[in-house]
């Protein structure tokens, strides 16, 4: 088992960080590395801070991932009892589905989009946002039913968009984009977009308005189904602790 040297040499004043500059070069002992430990896949971006705070509340400290100087993608907690992977939001369920991580934290939007074969254990409550249809404010569209037949919808969430319009029995063309979907309507490439909205600021600044909400999203705790069934490394205990911590929060 590959074990990275765990070094914590950063200094910071943030309360989330340990301020002492202890350097721990201790690799997990050979006894520990025989037994696979719980690995958690964590999402880069907006959910990371709350995810790390939640894990800290049950005694698993992965705050190294919040240090801008950190370049490691796989780290151990200081007690060397668990491991965390730092991956793209949409890659979290992939690592969990293939079992490289037993647990993961990811937005419901990603689960709706990718429909991974994972256990959905808990709504963690943070990371609130919504999947919405938005159009140019200046347009005449105020409902999806106003959109022209065979109109174009730009989205990063092609499956969500496709499912939604199919359920409404509206014929539209989905244009896949990987970022800045707001430019779709602005440039005239598409009549509308389907995108994740947190505050609505970006839409507003780009002259777009929401006309429909597909669903609301929050961060979810997911698990590898077989590891959950087998209770690998006492997974259930950790899940129960996370549940208590979430209820209290």
């Amino acid at each position, binding site marked *: 088992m590959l074990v990275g040297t765990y070094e914590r040499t950063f200094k910071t004043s943030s309360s989330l960080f340990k301020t002492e500059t202890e350097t721990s070069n201790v690799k997990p002992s050979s006894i520990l590395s025989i037994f*696979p430990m719980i690995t958690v896949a964590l999402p880069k971006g907006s959910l990371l801070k709350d995810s790390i705070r939640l894990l800290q509340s049950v005694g698993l400290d992965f705050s190294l991932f919040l240090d801008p100087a950190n370049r490691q993608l796989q780290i151990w907690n200081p007690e060397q009892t668990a491991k965390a992977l730092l991956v793209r939001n949409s890659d979290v369920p992939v690592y969990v589905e293939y079992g490289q991580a037993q647990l993961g934290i990811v937005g419901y939007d990603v689960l709706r989009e990718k429909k991974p074969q994972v256990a*959905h*254990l808990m*709504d963690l409550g943070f990371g609130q946002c919504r999947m919405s249809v938005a159009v140019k404010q200046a347009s005449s569209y105020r409902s999806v039913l106003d959109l022209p037949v065979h109109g174009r919808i730009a989205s990063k969430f092609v499956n969500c968009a496709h499912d939604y319009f199919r359920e409404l029995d509206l014929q539209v063309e989905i244009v896949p984009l990987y970022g800045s979907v707001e430019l779709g309507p602005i440039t005239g490439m598409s009549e509308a977009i389907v995108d994740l909205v947190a505050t609505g600021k970006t839409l507003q600044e780009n002259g777009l308005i929401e006309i429909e909400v597909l669903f609301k999203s929050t961060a979810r705790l997911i698990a590898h189904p*077989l*590891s959950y*069934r*087998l209770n690998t490394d006492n997974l*259930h205990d950790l899940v129960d602790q996370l549940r208590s911590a979430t209820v209290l929060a």
Partner: protein
Amino acid sequence: MVYQPPAGARDLLPLDVAQKRWLEDRLQQVFHHWGYHRIITSTLERLDALMAGGAIQRSTVLQLQDLENEGLGLRPELTASIARAAVTRMTGATHPLRLYYNANIFRRAEEGNHNRQQEFYQAGVELLGSGGLVADAEILLLLATCLQNLGLQQWNLILGEAGLTRSLLSPFPDSIRAKVRHAIAHLDRITLETLPLDPELRDRALLLLDLRGRPADVLQQVGSLDLDSEQREIVNNLKSLVELIQDSLNLNQPNPSFSLILDLSLIRTFDYYTGIVFEVVSDGESGHQILGQGGRYDQLLGLYHPQGKTYPGIGFSLQIEQLHRILLPTQQLPHQTPASDWLVVAESAQALVAAFAYAQALRASTDRLRVEMDLGTRSPDAIRKYAQDRAIAQIAWISIQGTATVETLASER
């Protein structure tokens, strides 16, 4: 022009085949020892026959069309084919039927899965015409013996009871039962928590979702539910089965050969299995993988019978590729193809008749001896080097007079 195999296809080269055969031979030994007979069914089946049981989705079948435009598919598993053959072609046979198979199957890769394998190999058994505890126990013990004969260390058997779980779901209103079942089968607790359910039913749903663990604990938990007589009988049978398996395999002793987990959330979203269901799951550094699965299907054969007459059935399938992957690091599998025992060399063209005859005589002398002919055009030193490189133990030099000089090579490997 380079001809490439279709995406998801895989060629098995001689070493792959040697390793695959090693696995299959060991499984076959066990099947024979337990009185099972091999059945070979058609790779191609009519689509409706493949899908009759409800467990196979059209989208997962690799489809073909014959001249009459009848939908055909490459089999994605063997049970449907064997059920069809058993009730239509083996009607006169005495029950129980003990059948095994070792065959390739095909699954269409899901959308978005690039280059995922489409052809797989499975070995498995079907025990037809007998229901009840003893048949269930035979199948589980046979499964354990198969894995033991492969030298597999540390694995898990997750055991469920589809009939019991389905029965425990019966109090849920029709409108919502399918959703509850889907959520339990997919371990989706969030959905169970948000579905519009009475508190009592929600508690039952959440209980079913996590009704797993050590068999004794789970049986006690189930026993404390308000069960009807039919459910109580299933629970009692399950208890007897678990005890029979544990006692037969010494699972309660230290260092058991595998761990048995009773899991009543192990269900499918379709009514295919009617009794016990199970999955074999590997342990180890590469994480958990499903190595095999099976269960009891007492309604399936009736779907294929011309008069709808049904017989009980139970079986399992083992995934050869997964077993191969798990066993590869254990060094048990052959790590090279077997070397030839003899190289027969004609010293000149005139000696060829004698050389071929000598090689034939060697082959006839002992079973399984591998004898290859030198194909000429090489110097004696080049021939010796070739034999050394290929770990061939002996060279027979055949002279014009037809006499053989045997040279034994020092083995390097």
